[in-house]
């Protein structure tokens, strides 16, 4: 059944809101914990309690678990480990015969980059639409490489605040994609002449990037529908965009040189088109076929000066793509690559004229504001929506062409669209937490705000320089 979008693209003002509703997993995943109970120990305990408490049933049956693991028909003899939250109360009370272990099957989800913790988090976000909230402080490593080596700033006294997060004020997550000239020129009659702004606005800095994933149209349709309902964009291979005219407003077809003569087959006029790698003929063909469309160049990260060259040839939107582990062809990580690209345009004096989108290695809500602080206008997520749809990684999935993901049987469109919307809602709400903490009222102000970034290497050098054994060269 085709899922019919309930929202419509922005027409006039409306307060942006993403409707969420629970969309539980359709494929059973391994439980988080393994619960091992030695049955003889449990039987002995039961017997001794029956004797001691002389049949006072409520006392005898009062077991440690508050989460129903031992509440099945045969109690602890058949623990329902899918309910276990790992509180360890049972093993504390009965160390002799209860063991709680992490389930290695669960830990195999994902791959070496998209580790099971990220998979877990996305599964929660996509099923609930909520911001993950937990007690007991931070449990992870101190800092680390890549995204983990960066913190975002906050402000002790400024607004907007939780008021913004809870809806009494607005924090805007609208981003513009396209071209804005550094200044306007006007003729004698006061009319703008020469280069004028040409952009589209989307309601959140998250696009769905299906541009490299050869899949059946089922997934493409879900991406398109969810993007339409969210008032954002789904980047889809040209072949998969065919026949999705219903969602024209939300679809960005990725076209290659071989599509130059087939653009008319699309059946609708897209607001934006991505050109897969530079090609003079294709560029001209896109302009001819869709004169109003914004044209983006989809290309690898890494060669920042070349990007400036393309901007001078007319391209104003760049969709920079790292592999699924966030690496460029020469092995550098996306966090540095974004900064390089951003800086190249700043140095050329045209950063305000272009839009930078990025994909690859951005797999958690926190990566989105970090990527924007480093210089992106918006993030185009690639593997996270697949994980939201409960795709399983088949081996290591770093390569955009060779990686394989298997999708759950019974995938249906309404469920998939809701999962994608829930994911977007959760990520947006987490973005609002970050923006609220900084006192920023709109996400556009986040882009390239490097003063709001704190890097572990720099902070560590400031704090520990001069200590015996600390070498800035080794650590910085």
């Amino acid at each position, binding site marked *: 059944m085709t899922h019919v979008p309930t929202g419509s693209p922005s027409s006039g003002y409306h307060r942006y809101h993403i409707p969420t509703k629970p969309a539980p997993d359709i494929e059973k995943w391994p439980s988080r914990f393994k619960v091992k109970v030695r049955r003889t120990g449990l039987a002995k305990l039961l017997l001794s309690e029956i004797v001691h*408490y002389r049949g006072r049933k409520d006392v005898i049956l*009062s077991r*440690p*678990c*508050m989460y129903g693991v031992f509440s099945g028909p045969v109690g602890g003899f058949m623990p329902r480990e899918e309910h276990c*939250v*790992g*509180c*360890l109360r049972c*093993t*504390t*009370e*009965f*160390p002799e015969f209860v*063991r*709680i272990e992490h389930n290695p099957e669960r830990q195999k989800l994902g791959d070496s980059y998209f580790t099971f913790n990220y998979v877990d*988090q996305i599964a929660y976000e996509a099923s609930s639409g909520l*911001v*993950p*909230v*937990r*007690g*007991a*402080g*931070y*449990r*992870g*490593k*101190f*800092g*680390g490489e890549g995204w983990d080596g*960066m*913190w*975002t*700033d*906050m*402000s*002790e*006294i*400024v607004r907007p*605040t*939780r*008021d913004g997060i809870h809806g009494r004020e607005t924090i805007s997550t609208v981003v513009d994609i396209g071209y804005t000239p550094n200044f306007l020129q006007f003729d004698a009659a006061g009319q703008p002449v020469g280069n004028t702004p040409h952009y589209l606005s989307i309601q959140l800095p998250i696009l769905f990037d299906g541009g490299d994933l050869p899949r059946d149209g089922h997934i493409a349709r879900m991406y398109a529908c969810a993007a339409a309902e969210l008032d954002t964009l789904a980047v889809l291979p040209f072949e998969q965009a065919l026949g999705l005219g219903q969602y024209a407003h939300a679809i960005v077809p990725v076209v290659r040189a071989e599509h130059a003569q087939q653009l008319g087959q699309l059946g609708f006029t897209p607001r934006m088109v991505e050109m897969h790698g530079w090609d003079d003929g294709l560029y001209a063909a896109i302009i001819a076929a869709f004169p109003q469309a914004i044209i983006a160049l989809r290309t690898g990260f890494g060669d920042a000066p070349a990007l400036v060259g393309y901007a001078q040839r007319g391209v104003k939107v760049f969709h920079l793509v790292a592999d699924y582990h966030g690496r460029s062809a020469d092995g550098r990580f996306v966090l540095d690559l974004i900064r390089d690209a951003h800086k190249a345009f700043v140095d050329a004096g045209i950063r305000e004229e272009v839009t930078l989108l990025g994909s690859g290695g951005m797999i958690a*809500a926190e990566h989105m504001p*970090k990527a924007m602080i480093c210089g992106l206008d918006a993030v185009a997520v690639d593997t996270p929506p697949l994980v939201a749809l409960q795709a399983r990684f088949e081996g290591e999935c770093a390569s955009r062409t060779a990686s394989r993901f298997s999708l759950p049987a019974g995938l249906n469109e309404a469920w998939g669209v809701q999962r994608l919307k829930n994911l977007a809602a959760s990520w947006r709400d987490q973005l609002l*937490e*970050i923006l*609220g*903490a900084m006192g920023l009222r709109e996400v556009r102000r986040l882009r390239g705000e490097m*003063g*709001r970034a704190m890097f*572990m290497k720099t*902070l560590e050098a*400031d*704090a*520990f320089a*001069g*200590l*015996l054994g600390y070498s800035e060269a080794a*650590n910085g």
Partner: protein
Amino acid sequence: MASIAGKTDEQLIVEKHIANFHRGFAYWPRAEEAPPALGDSRWTQDLILATWLMAETGKPPDNGLEYKIGASGGGFDVLDFNIPSEDKWLPADTEIDLSIPLNRRDDGAQLKIDLPMYGGGMSYGSISEHVMQARARAAQQLGTFTSTGEGGYPPSLVPYKDHIITQVATGMFGVREETIQYAPIVEFKYAQGAKPGLGGHLLGDKATDVVAAMRESVPWVSLFSPFPFHSVYSVEDHRKHVDWIRTTNPRALVSVKVSTPTDVDMVAVGSYFAGAHIVHLDGSYGGTGAAPEIAKKNIAMPIEFAIPKVHKYLVSENVREEVTLMASGGVRTAYDVAKAIALGADGCVMGTAELIAIGCTRCSNCERGRGCPFGLTTTDPLLQQLMPADWGQQRIVNMYTAYAAQLRDLLRKLGLHSIRELRGRRDLLKYVG
């Protein structure tokens, strides 16, 4: 097993679980293996078990458990002390002073604490009343303080009021004239490190009738303490807060609890000039009842980086000797306390370590439904009986007693007679990352 005569089912259930808990807390630190799913990078299995052992015995572990550092790979875990050769150590019977003054100005009461640590704010509602009582009694016994957090001041704490800091935060939950008048120290919470910039949040499930009554709010409704103070946009505005407290309770010291943004040094100096006696820096990796995961991990800097930044700036502004700098947010062990002081703090504010001493496994389920299955971060009347206040008091006292022994031993080996001599002694630290 205890006798069952004359007892209700509820009493028997509580007794049964308490007995089992106590057996488990004693068993695991001495067992050959650790509970497999216990611990994380910051609070490792060893650190949790060592804390349980210290809470039981009052002594540092002697069975090989690692009780000094965790496995986070950074911050305190990559620092160690540069211990001189044994001939430079002070004699074993040297008196080592662990006390620190909390007021370095010439106004207000000249308070001092016997240990360079006090308990951080945990509110009525986020933790059980029994836990609050245990902390308050332990603070009294140890000659230090604990803080109410923002959620009111249960009458059962009044007997310990000389050891209780009253917290004033943006929601003003439970802040009353008499609770300010009780307070030897009033703490303004501008931000908390566990969720910097986000304010407080008590989930509706934990806002029971009694919690709501204490907070003068509506039962079973989530409570937000908005961030920031909408009445404070400048040093002068903060000064007005200080004046308010001074008017209500002229002898109270004022503490300002702030988080750790890039400009934390400016914030600290501003707090000093607004009249604060204590600047309390709360770093980003500390404990909380409930916080968005994104905030815990990503916003603001860890305390290890904030302390030297602030210390240096206070020195350069010539006000370091006029203000007490307390640090919190991921301070887990006596060695973390010593490292924080060597980096420039006067002392530390402890939270999670106290909860671990009384049975927390750091399972991160505090925010769920009825709250903590060990009866700590809960408002459930049955669950909170699982942690009796007198037992908790003794465990917390024992843990700090073990910490004090470690601090004295360390200072003696460093050739220092008092903890105050350790402040800012970066030369005594080494980097082992």
